[in-house]
């Protein structure tokens, strides 16, 4: 039987934690401030202990666990149909994509063929979620560095997506639309029309974003050369998603390990080589345009057929280990299920993108100013429930 202790066989083989990181700071003239757990820039209950020398950051220590809800443990007591909805509460901004990862894992274990119609609708929903998530990130990040107005402008477009979600899934944020084997319900009759309207609107509005924020000289100066994350560091910290692609790491799961119908649509993996905050920003802005491209290809070609495969009333995964991964708006989400053949999983582990991306914050922030930290956290796009789970 699989036990966690088997993973680490020899404790002495783990390299000691760098002394610098343990002691760091504490010298004369150092100022230690606690950013969070309640702080406007952390967008949640993240606690950062920052050692400062004047305005210059010497060390950042993230303290986690303030909203740990033990989702992984909870899932072990829920059946394979039930546990999917809990995952909407991890990265609540890409709830659909989280659900997709879990549904894929169960389908892989059960070897269920998902109908084409369900797969196409799933991809459209995923991409809409990605746009909505990036919209919120864009507004929140602009607010972090002091511009308030973009936040409301971003919410205007996000609201349109939420309306589409509400119409088809019945909820705006925690949709719980995917079930093992397909979708919970067929798409709403107005779905295609609404999505097309949204695309037309969005294409017009995304240029306003460039006027308001991207081209702004203050914004560019705040972003350029700030929070450098080299390609090697990005790989070694396990960063994924836009945070890693901003450093030129080829890591889009949709390209590397295509799932659903991603291998049938044309889109580009966005890579920037700037390694700084501006590169990560540009990756997300360009990714939104790619998402629109994917939706445009699919929205008129939703195949007819069932929206759900025939499944047994009680799902039981065969004994074994199953792992699937998807690309959420923040990066790679892995779902790892250990099954002993029962109706509930024996062990579930989520590999969440936010946690790994946060681990890079310290090395990015050292030596930069306090104001930069906020910009860096903005471009990492941290969602705290995703980090704590």
């Amino acid at each position, binding site marked *: 039987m699989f036990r966690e202790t088997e993973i680490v066989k020899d404790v002495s083989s783990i390299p000691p934690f760098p002394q610098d990181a343990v002691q760091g700071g504490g010298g004369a003239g150092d*100022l230690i*401030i606690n950013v969070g757990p309640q*702080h*406007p*820039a952390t967008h949640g209950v993240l606690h950062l202990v920052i050692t400062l020398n004047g*305005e210059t950051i010497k060390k950042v220590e993230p303290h986690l666990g303030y909203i740990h809800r033990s989702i992984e443990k909870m899932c072990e007591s829920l059946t394979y149909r039930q546990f999917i909805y809990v995952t909407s509460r991890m990265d609540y901004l890409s709830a659909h994509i989280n659900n997709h990862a879990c549904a894929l894992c169960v389908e892989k274990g059960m070897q269920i063929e998902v109908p084409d119609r369900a797969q196409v609708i799933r991809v459209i929903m995923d991409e809409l979620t990605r746009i909505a998530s990036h919209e919120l990130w864009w507004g929140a990040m*602009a*607010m*972090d*560095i*002091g*511009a*308030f*107005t973009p*936040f*409301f*402008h971003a919410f*205007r477009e996000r609201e349109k997506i939420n309306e589409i979600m509400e119409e088809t899934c019945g909820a705006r944020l925690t949709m719980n639309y995917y079930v093992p084997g397909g979708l919970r319900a067929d798409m709403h009759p107005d779905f295609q029309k609404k999505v097309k309207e949204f695309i037309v609107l969005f294409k017009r509005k995304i240029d306003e974003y460039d006027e*308001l*924020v991207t081209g*702004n000289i*203050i*914004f560019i*100066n*705040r972003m350029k050369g700030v929070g450098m994350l080299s390609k090697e560091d990005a790989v070694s910290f396990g960063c994924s998603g836009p945070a890693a692609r901003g450093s030129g790491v080829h890591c889009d799961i949709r390209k590397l390990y295509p799932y659903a119908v991603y291998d049938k649509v044309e889109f580009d993996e966005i890579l920037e080589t700037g390694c700084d905050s501006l590169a990560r920003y540009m990756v997300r802005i360009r990714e939104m345009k790619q998402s629109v491209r994917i939706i445009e290809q699919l929205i008129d070609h939703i195949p007819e057929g069932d929206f759900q495969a025939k499944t047994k009333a009680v799902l039981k995964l065969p004994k074994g280990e199953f792992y699937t991964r998807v690309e959420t708006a923040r990066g790679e989400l892995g779902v790892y299920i250990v099954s002993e053949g029962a109706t509930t999983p024996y062990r579930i582990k989520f590999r969440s993108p936010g946690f790994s991306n946060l681990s890079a914050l310290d090395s990015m922030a050292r030596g930069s*100013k*306090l*104001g*930069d*930290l*906020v910009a860096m956290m903005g471009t990492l796009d941290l969602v705290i429930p995703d980090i704590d789970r």
Partner: protein
Amino acid sequence: MWSLTNISTGIHDWLIQTFNPTWALIIEMVIAGIAVIGLFAVLGLVLVLMERRVAAWMQIRLGPNRVGPFGLLQSAADTVKLLVKEGMTPDGADKFLFNLAPFIAMMVAMLLMVPIAFAKDFQLWDLNIGVLYVSAVSSIMVISILMAGWASNNKYSLMGAMRSGAQIVSYELSAGLSILTIVVLTGSLNINDIIIAQADGWWIFKGHIPVIISFVIFIIAVTAETNRAPFDLAEAESELTSGFHTEYSGMKFALFFLAEYINVFIVCAIGATLFLGGWMPFHIGNWESFNHVMDYIPSSIWFFGKTFFLIFVIMWFRWTFPRLRIDQLLNLEWRYLLPISMFNLLLATAIAILGWHF
């Protein structure tokens, strides 16, 4: 023609006739004090409401619209709320300085009202160094921020105070230099002289490019001096929660808040006086009939119109731009604004000597 001058001279004459001169002076002082405090209250209410409306419309929102017609009583309701709130003093704070700081901020704002000409011949004190007085007294403002930041015994407050100190001290230079451009052109520090010198056209129109440049620099520098976005590093809420007034609550916070808005009003009034002619109506050279038509609009309306236009511009900045970083803020001052304004002052001096301005 209706004007504020008639009212003020009327009251003055009546007082002189009724009381002996000392009592008349004291009563006039009291009236002036009450008028300043009243103006403060009204300005505070109006500016807060204006800021919220401007912000809302730029952010495709409606803004306050629940309290009173069109939300006009919203800021009055906010004031009542702040008045009845508990004003806490944190443990470990230097209580004397902590409670003193908001009053210093307020007193500075009141003192700054003194030389401003609100309308033709309507001024508290016609100082012969009016412009210098404003830039001198406004430099005391930084002390109250430093005091508040230090006395709060909070690291965020202290950092906010340090930032704001560095910022105000450096931006005073370019604000002063751009004021000097006008002083050089006019040859006087007296605010009334400066306004009268613009009787045949405002400086921004007849001063060529140097005055336009110094106008732009002035607006940028005073935005920074009043700690408004994009230079609101002292209270940068996403970095320092609220900067120097993190620990303040209730009326003590409200005094800081009010002082900020009054300062915005004052710097905009100075900007309007120096560059846009203060209460001087829109005159063009020697188009006598046109100038005469313009004179029918009361001078106070001209003054407040110009001032509120500049306030709107500063609010427009706030709701459009992201915040600068502290080193970029100082870079902007020392690498761009200061050299440009020094060079610009030279140009303006050359123009003044050669008499090239209209």
